């Protein structure tokens, strides 16, 4: 059988980074073909080339056996649609307007609205989206917006649908629903490329799996011929690597390090982003806060270290009230933070390593002599941390621009941990890192736990939540849907229900 799409010897370079290096890829009609690999392996680049968004430097693309060259508009004509990781939607417009944006039926310059509305409504019903065509997209949840993206693709009559990490923003239940839709589309003869790095999902739905690593295709597995382990090995190019787990028996202290009670926060539009959220965290405890991203987690973090002021409730830290304390007061009291956005918040990329490390403690006598910077001892201090935290790729002049994500994260860890925090807030600490770096971060967090630091772990990764936490709280729409204190018997499924807003009383512990 002839493949629907053949990509041969695709090479794409960005300024000196080779994103795709002689990649071959085939897609048959009516198959679900998964594309897996670590971040930066070149999956998205390859698919953006297929989608016509990038032009390959070398190589050719054959559709139905004919060599073709096209841009995005051409791709739509060839029946190729892509659902991006970051949705391409106009938030202020309605579902209908978003769906027909790329493909409008018009007569004499007028949109045939009635006809479009009927079709969009049909699709909404078929995909089980509980919304009307005229609903404004901004009012939808992240999961619902995902369906709209897929409806958009089906509406233009795509026969090749590329899904770029579609499950990253979904609860497990929503993911199941997505898989049902994929199966249905497959039945209609649509070919689907599924980009992911969640191996379980890949194994569950794929007919074939292609693995990419550092811009190269390292293997394609045929249906029924693969297990999670095979794929994982091909992904990291090593024999089995285990992620570090929290199985230390270090006792958790009685003493509460931080207590928040009844926290409320209203955003600029007066919507409650954090609602009546309470928790207490003890010495040497890892308290995991799970939930689909965007359910108030980042606002909660901002409240805890003074970046935002709570609209209601109080926060006590080591026995003193810090509800109205400033950022520097909170940090000086012993709160360390690993922020979720390391480029925008966690570091100053144009500055040097030294400048990044001492920010906020520059008045310390070690670095400060009557208002003058002690440049030499600052440099020494930085070199010490580079050694302790195994930060690699540091340039001669200590500029940090161009360093990899893993090493940038190590700089943040070095800065926060070296200050000896009593409470360490770690928000998405391993996001976007490769396995080596993930293990390094996990090791450091567990080491801090041993030292008696209380760690508030905010993560959207269920595996991480279950492997590291001593206790778990799930956030949904700003509130807490449940506490899981018996982490060992909890499953991703039961957490998933909590993440979808179903209260713990309805789920039952560890169900």
């Amino acid at each position, binding site marked *: 059988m002839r493949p629907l799409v053949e990509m041969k010897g695709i090479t794409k370079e960005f300024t*000196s980074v080779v994103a795709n290096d002689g990649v071959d890829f085939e897609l048959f009609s009516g198959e679900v073909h998964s594309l897996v690999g670590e971040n930066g392996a070149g999956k998205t*680049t390859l698919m953006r080339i297929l989608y016509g968004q990038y032009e390959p430097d070398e190589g050719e693309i054959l559709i139905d056996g004919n060599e073709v060259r096209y841009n995005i508009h051409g791709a739509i004509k060839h029946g190729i649609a892509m659902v991006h990781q970051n949705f391409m939607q106009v938030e202020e417009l309605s579902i209908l307007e978003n769906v027909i944006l790329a493909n409008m039926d018009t007569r004499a310059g007028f949109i045939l609205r009635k006809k479009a509305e009927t079709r969009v409504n049909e699709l909404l019903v078929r995909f089980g989206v509980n919304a009307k065509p005229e609903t404004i997209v901004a009012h939808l949840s992240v999961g619902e917006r995902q369906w709209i993206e897929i409806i958009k693709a089906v509406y233009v009559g795509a026969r090749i649908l590329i899904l770029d990490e579609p499950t990253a923003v979904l609860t497990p239940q929503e993911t199941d629903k997505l898989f049902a839709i994929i199966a249905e589309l497959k039945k209609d003869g649509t070919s689907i490329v599924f980009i992911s790095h969640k191996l379980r999902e890949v194994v569950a739905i794929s007919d074939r799996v292609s693995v990419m690593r550092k811009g190269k295709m390292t293997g394609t597995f045929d249906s029924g011929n693969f297990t999670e382990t095979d794929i994982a090995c091909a992904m990291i190019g090593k024999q089995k690597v285990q992620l570090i787990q929290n199985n230390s028996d270090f006792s958790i202290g009685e003493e509460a390090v931080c207590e928040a009670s009844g926290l409320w926060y209203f955003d600029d539009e007066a919507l409650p982003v954090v609602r009546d959220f309470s928790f207490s965290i003890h010495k040497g405890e890892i308290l995991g806060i799970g939930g689909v991203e965007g359910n108030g987690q980042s606002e909660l973090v901002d409240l805890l270290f003074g*970046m935002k002021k709570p609209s209601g409730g109080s926060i006590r830290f080591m026995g003193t009230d810090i509800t109205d304390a400033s950022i520097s007061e909170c940090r000086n009291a012993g709160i360390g933070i690993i922020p979720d956005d390391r480029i925008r*918040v966690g570091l100053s990329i*144009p500055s040097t390593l030294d400048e990044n490390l001492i*920010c906020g403690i*520059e008045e310390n006598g070690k670095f400060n002599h009557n*208002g*003058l910077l002690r440049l030499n001892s600052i440099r020494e201090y930085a070199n010490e941390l580079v050694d302790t935290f195994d930060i690699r790729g540091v340039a001669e002049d200590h500029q940090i621009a*161009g360093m990899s994500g893993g090493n940038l994260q190590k700089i943040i860890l070095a800065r926060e941990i070296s200050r000896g925090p009593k409470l360490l807030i770690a928000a998405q600490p391993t996001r976007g890192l490769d396995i080596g770096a993930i293990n390094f971060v996990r090791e450091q967090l567990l080491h801090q736990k041993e030292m008696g630091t209380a760690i508030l772990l905010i993560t959207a990764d269920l595996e991480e939540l279950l492997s590291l936490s001593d206790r778990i709280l799930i956030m949904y729409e700003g509130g807490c849907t449940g506490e899981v204190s018996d982490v060992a018997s909890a499953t991703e499924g039961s957490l998933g229900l909590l993440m979808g807003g179903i209260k713990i009383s309805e789920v039952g512990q560890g169900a």
Partner: protein
Amino acid sequence: MNQMIEKVRHIRRIQYLNSFNPIFAVLIAFLVSGLMVLLSGGSPIEAYIAIARGAFGSMSSIMSTIRFTLPLLLLAIAFTMCNKCGYFNIGQEGQMYASALTITWVQISFGNSLPVPILFLLMLVCGAVVGGLVSLLPAYLKLKFGVNEIVMGILLNYTILRLSDFLLQNTALGKPHANTSMSVFYIPSIPTPVLAVIACLIVIVYAFIEKKTIPGYRLRMVGSNPIFAQFSGLNKTKIVLVVAMLSGVLASLTSTGELVGIYKCFYYNYADGLGFSAMTAALIGKQSVVGMLFGALLLGALQSGAIGLSVSASASPEIVILVRGFVMLFGTISVLQYFMHERRKTKEIS
């Protein structure tokens, strides 16, 4: 790992190329302006020779170049320190007029009753306070309410300029029926070389503070990533406000120098375009101290050369404004990078 080293090298290469950009911007500006002169029937070479002679031809022309360079240098520093912490201080002319009004008022109120040194000191202090406050206003409104400081700054410039016109014409501050202040400042003038030394000292002190001290460090951190600085516990609001105020003080010092040292009176619109020229100097200096020194010197020489040009007949002195405009235009776009097609390749890597 190799990819990473390559990437770092690439970034360094672009930084290196960028450091030459101002020189190219200036060269292209001269070329394009020369072309304009040629098209309008003049001789660009002759014009440029006349400018060079006007700027550096004799001892007095060198003094005149220094005289025009100094205010530009001070204002460029004032602009740069604000820019470094994310506040685009475009209101320097307004700050200068406001402090000029204050100085004139001090002169008229106390000129006859106070000894000269105390009077001069009083002028400096009062001018500085008002200049600082005027600079503080847009910065405060920006931080408090998110007002656009550029729009606000430009509008304040006009408002204060017109206000000074009104006050000079209608109150005792000005001569009757003329928009010039009636007072003549009789403070002994300071020789230009001494002024040059003082200005150089200010530059060195500024460079030292920025590079080697804790306040300078904070300023740089707020400038390079304000969110990170805030996240680390620096008080961004306070830092920006203090810097904005100091910048206004520097603008007012410049104003005092111009009024007391050069014009000996306050005439309407005396600082026309000075703020923008200083911004150009800061831009082509890439906000580095040495760069600004050269930038200010270039623009100062052009201004001083324009006087030489008006004597010779071959081209009109407006060519200087032309060159200045093109320097600003080409200075803001990365000419070199564009020509090397680096731009297209530096797209986001995903």
